[in-house]
């Protein structure tokens, strides 16, 4: 029992409640409280990131002890993989709140913004900490409903349309997930992930569960915007206010999409070859099609949104390769390498894509447009934005000193070692096209001086925005340290251990 675990959910929910009540009476209460909350949670999550290791801590809500080794209460579980995603959520969330302090001033209803932001953080923390399926669903809905509202926060034509589209597809995903949960409960009579795994051990009806696996894959795939389900993502991510785009793209699609897919398919279902080949195919499709859709875009945020699909494709591809190797039962070192590459890229993507969206927001904040053709020559007037976005662009395209290079390298090495030469080749090609696309972004936004009509008084953005962009770019450089053995063993290896050992998760939770 670790009594601090529920704080990750309780503090943001209380914060949202207090902001709604007291925010209108006390000046600056909303931003102070939100940044304080996120600071506390970020410190707490980083503390757990460095101390958890191979341990697994539990919190049984309401103190319900298991009866005959069958868990009857709600479990919150924190293990090596959870803490990684938890740190991403809270650290990126903290930097984004600092950024919003200046950015969101031009909107009315700041209270609502901060309250919804806290709700979204609380929901995502709940999703990653929850140890049973139905709570994953409940917290997922908390975070996505607040993100529907946040996408529509500008209440103009585009924002509302994007939010409506997002709601239809998100709602469809929720029903598919709920159906899947229903089928699981029908067969196993339990909702606890560890307990379901225990039931599966005594007999796994593959022809029945493959249907459930497909339901979950479609549902969470819609939330994660894997390619056949991606239609909502470019609209929603480009229409939302920029800090929210950074949260949606950097954190939300990972916490409620990719994280749950990885958790369920490794720790709950038995890995089957068909599903793992399907997941790898979807990942490859996302990676390739996403980048081709991104090439032709002239709206910066839409370009970044399509790159999110493509980069998430790398993560899915790496994890899928690991699943194929595990289901074949050979090459476990290569499987570990592939999954490590996937999780590493997940962390890196949060850093550089969050930063890129913050840069896009800074550009939009100063010159008021998102169209690349109307920009140019911003490098001189906005040096910090230009430098940080250069770091992020090089990082996402996989240029050596930055973090994106190392994770892509690990994924490609794993693909070659597993003899998936075609996938390795595609990963390299997609990386090159990404580089081309971001060179275009850099050139048109910061260096192109052909029509220099923007020479009016363009100033650099205010200090809080600069601060969070600089910290994010330092993270982009610092995260490449994760590739080196000493640090990787502390941070990444526990996550991989809990995922690749099929029975460890359930046996620790059930206590045998």
């Amino acid at each position, binding site marked *: 029992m670790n009594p601090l675990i529920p704080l990750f959910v309780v503090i943001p929910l209380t914060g949202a409640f207090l902001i709604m009540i007291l925010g209108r009476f006390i000046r600056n209460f909303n931003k102070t409280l939100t940044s304080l909350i996120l600071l506390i949670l970020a410190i707490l999550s980083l503390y757990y990131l460095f101390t958890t290791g191979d341990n697994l801590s539990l919190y049984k809500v309401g103190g319900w002890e298991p009866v005959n080794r069958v868990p009857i209460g709600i479990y919150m579980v924190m293990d090596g993989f959870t803490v990684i995603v938890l740190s991403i959520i809270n650290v990126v969330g903290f930097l984004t709140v600092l950024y919003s302090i200046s950015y969101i001033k031009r909107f009315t209803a700041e209270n609502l913004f901060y309250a919804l932001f806290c709700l979204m953080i609380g929901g995502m923390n709940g999703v990653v900490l929850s140890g049973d399926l139905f709570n994953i669903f409940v917290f997922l809905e908390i975070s996505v409903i607040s993100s529907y509202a946040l996408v529509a926060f500008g209440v103009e034509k585009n924002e509302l349309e994007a939010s409506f589209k997002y709601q239809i597809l998100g709602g469809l995903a929720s029903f598919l997930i709920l159906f899947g949960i229903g089928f699981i409960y029908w067969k196993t*009579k339990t909702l606890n992930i560890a307990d379901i795994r225990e039931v599966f051990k005594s007999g796994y009806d593959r022809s029945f569960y493959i249907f459930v696996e497909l339901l979950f894959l479609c549902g969470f795939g819609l939330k994660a915007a894997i390619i056949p389900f991606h239609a909502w993502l470019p609209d929603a991510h480009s229409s939302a206010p920029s800090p929210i785009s950074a949260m949606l793209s950097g954190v939300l699609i990972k916490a409620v999409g990719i994280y749950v897919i990885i958790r369920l398919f490794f720790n709950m279902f038995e890995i089957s070859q068909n599903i793992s080949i399907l997941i790898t195919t979807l990942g490859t499709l996302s990676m390739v099609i996403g980048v081709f859709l991104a090439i032709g875009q002239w709206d910066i945020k839409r370009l970044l949104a399509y790159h999110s699909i493509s980069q998430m494709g790398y993560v899915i591809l790496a994890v899928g390769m690991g699943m194929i190797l595990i289901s074949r039962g050979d090459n476990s070192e290569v499987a570990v390498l592939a999954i490590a590459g996937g999780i590493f890229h997940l962390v890196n993507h949060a850093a550089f894509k969050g930063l890129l969206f913050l840069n896009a927001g800074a550009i939009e904040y100063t010159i008021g447009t998102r169209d690349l053709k109307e920009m140019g020559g911003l490098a001189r007037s906005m040096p910090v934005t230009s430098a940080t976005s250069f770091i992020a662009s090089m990082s996402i395209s996989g240029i050596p000193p930055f973090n994106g290079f190392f994770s892509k390298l690990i994924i490609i090495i794993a693909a070659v070692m597993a003899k998936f030469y075609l996938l390795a080749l595609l990963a390299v090609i997609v990386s090159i096209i990404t580089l081309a696309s971001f060179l275009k972004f850099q050139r048109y936004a910061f260096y192109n001086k052909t029509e220099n009509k923007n020479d009016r008084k363009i100033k650099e953005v205010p200090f809080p925005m600069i601060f969070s962009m600089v910290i994010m770019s330092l993270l982009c450089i610092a995260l490449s340290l994760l590739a080196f053995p000493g640090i990787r063993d502390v941070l990444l290896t526990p996550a991989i251990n809990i995922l690749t050992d099929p029975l460890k998760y359930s046996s620790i939770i059930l206590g045998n």
Partner: protein
Amino acid sequence: MIAYLLCFVLFLVGLYGIITQRNLVKIAISMSIMEFSTFLFFALIGYIEGGVAPIVDPADPVKTYVDPLPQALVLTAIVIGLATTAMMMAVIIRLYRKYGTFDIREIKNLRG
């Protein structure tokens, strides 16, 4: 078994509505139909043939109760469904104010 089939048919009716309807409000209604087919499915899997409501009475011991857990889940899911429907309706009203129409064919600013 027939009840499960009806539940599935209800789901398909909702899906058909979402795909074919042009009116935003009708799309929202179709979403609700899909939602309720899911809730119906949960109520069905908790039902046990010949079971009674799970209130234990020591004086009259009954052998079979229906499973109460899916009912609790459905209650939670209904509350969530209320929130999604309210959110969607709010956005639809705002969309109507901006575009002056409920027709989804005329609401297409975002392309590509």
